[in-house]
């Protein structure tokens, strides 16, 4: 469904992505993981067309992305970021409905779709009329997800969607997100720096370091057969202290 072929990217002469090949199957959830600055967000942003690679191909459902088809393909992707993605001047309902209105959907179809999504994301009905500034952090991310799902896209691109939430809300949303993605059968790419979240939400994990993919596979594969010492070190660091404790209780 999604593919990157030998993509390169430099920012101000500094190589950020160094020849990455990556494939995401339909209905699969891939978690991109790594330390901050490793290039995981940049890869995600290539699919949604916010970063243009210096070399290589970005492929969406068999079609290489270019300026001509970008706008149309974007309608088939839902993009959620950590914070600041909602339009502060529009209510939760208008944020969700904006693109559908642009495409000329009839009002009743929009209203019905918003209601379906509201129930799916468990947003209180009263919150629909509120502006982003009046919503809690968790509610804002629920609205972001509603907006991303509005046009029923094939693909969800999630860039640290839960990164700014407090731990309780975060774990609640992690569970709901897994449910929603699984239930809808979407292809999804999740960028996170949290190994637990990557494992919990992703079918597969791709670990990045300095613009390259170090190893991909299930978390168990990464733990059992680390391709190099960095993989083991990364996992070890993430396990301390929470993972070891939760691991022990599992």
């Amino acid at each position: 469904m999604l593919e990157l072929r030998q993509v390169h990217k430099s920012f101000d002469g500094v190589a950020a992505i160094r020849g990455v090949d990556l494939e995401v199957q339909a209905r699969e959830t891939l978690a991109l993981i790594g330390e901050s600055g490793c290039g995981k967000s940049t890869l995600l942003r290539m699919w949604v067309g916010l970063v243009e690679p210096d070399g290589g191909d970005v492929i969406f459902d068999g079609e290489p992305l270019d300026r001509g088809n970008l706008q149309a393909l974007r309608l088939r992707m839902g993009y959620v970021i950590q914070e600041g993605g909602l339009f502060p001047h529009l209510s939760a309902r208008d944020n969700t409905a904006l693109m559908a209105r642009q495409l000329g959907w009839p009002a009743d179809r929009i209203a019905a779709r918003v209601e379906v999504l509201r129930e799916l994301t468990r947003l209180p009905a009263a919150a629909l009329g509120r502006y982003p500034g009046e919503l809690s952090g968790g509610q804002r991310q629920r609205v972001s997800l509603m907006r991303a799902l509005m046009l029923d896209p094939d693909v969800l691109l999630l860039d640290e969607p839960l990164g700014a939430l407090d731990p309780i809300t975060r774990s609640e949303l992690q569970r709901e997100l897994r449910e929603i993605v699984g239930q809808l059968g979407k292809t999804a790419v999740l960028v996170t720096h949290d190994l637990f979240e990557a494992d919990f939400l992703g079918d597969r994990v791709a670990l990045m370091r300095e613009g390259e993919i170090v190893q991909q596979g299930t978390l168990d594969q990464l733990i059992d057969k680390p391709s190099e010492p960095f993989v083991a070190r990364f996992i070890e660091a993430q396990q301390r202290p929470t993972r070891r404790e939760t691991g022990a209780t599992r």
Partner: protein
Amino acid sequence: MKREALATLALCSMLGCASEPAASVTVGSKKFTESVVLGELASHMIEDAGMGARHRPELGGTRILWKALRMGEIDVYPDYSGTLAVEILGGRVATDHAALSQALAKQGVVLGKPLGFENTYAIGMREENAARLGIRSISDLKAHPELRYGLTAEFLDRKDGWPGLSRAYGLTPREVRGLDHDLAYRGLEAASFEVTDVYTTDADIDYYKLRVLEDDRGYFPEYRAMMVYRADFVRAQPEAHAAIERLANRIDATTMRRLNYQVKLEKRSEAAVAAGFVAEHFETRPRAAGPGSAHSPGRGERLLRHGSQHLTLVAISLLAAIAVALPLGIVAARRRRLGQLIIGVVGVLQTIPSLALLVFMIPLFGIGASPAIAALFVYSLLPIVRNTHAGLSQLPLATLESASAMGLSDTARLCLVELPLAAPSILAGIKTAAVINVGTATLGALIGAGGFGQPILTGIRLDDHALILEGAIPAAVLAVVASLLFDGLERLLVSPGLRIGR
């Protein structure tokens, strides 16, 4: 003439006022009482000869009148030989009548015969101060550098004014400041300074008991008063020219000072004073009331007229500025290099002094409302361009990227996301422009645009506080109302979502 008629028509249709009877001759005058009286006299002579006259009184200064005359906005105005020789001809010509006539003819201007009086610059002091210090001539001032000088702004700048005078007499006073001619007398009275420049036919010389110091080195050139005509006009309307020229050699200095006194200190209208003079000195036929001077209509009517003129100036210039500045601001925010250029150019325009800008506009738009609107338009650009640019440039990248990523086109993103988010900044820019505009529009009166500047100008000239307030208070109120209006507009146009957490 055609231009004038068109401009008048345009202005009248804009204001929705009844059109005035077609005037065949347009007389201009400067913004001091003597000039206005002479303008009224010329108008009376024309009407007395059975022709139509329109007087555009109180235009800003020599340059403005000269340009208006050359452009055909006015046909005739009163001026002085010294002013013409030095200000218009750059001092390269002698001030005698023959030499001046010849030089002006080359510029398509005909000089009338001398009216019979001279109104030269002179230096004056209060009699009691002069007597106490024993000052009789300008040379005597050299020994008193402690005296403070309050000189009119025009005198300070003119080639035949202070720069030359201080050099000729070696005057080096400690304090020299510039102010309006009509304010100078009040400054003398309030003892803010001791020395000022005066015109020798000023009514105030007697009233304020001034001693006119002797020009013992013969520095000041002659300032013989005469009418100045455009040559086209003299050729096309010889009867009108002849009618005005009947004033030649009929007004001596005493007469002129008396006429000035009647207006300034007896508070009679220029029209009435001029009518009295004409009736006294010429065989006249009975006529209707003279062309309206600034005092004749009632206060309510004046307020309404000045208010509608002022609003027209502000509204048209502001709307035009929004139409141009908003796209410029958007382009500036999109293209960094071009944006710097746009903001730079608009910023430079803003630094042009308002009076200078008004003068620049005359060759393009004549006199009246159009050049004032053009100047106000120029002044309104910067706040709107800058605030549009700033508002759009400061939007969070994450929000803009989200808009693009969901598939909005650039245009849709601009209209649905960027402009609504930048609206508070843009509206604040428009509000600033509007408030500045309301204030600056009072200067429009200097080039015949009317508005609340008119009573201020006339009030200063006639030392009439009530009249000054009649312009100043409504202008201030209008500025406050404009500000409130935009606050209301902001509440209407800006999403409540943007007020949260502010």
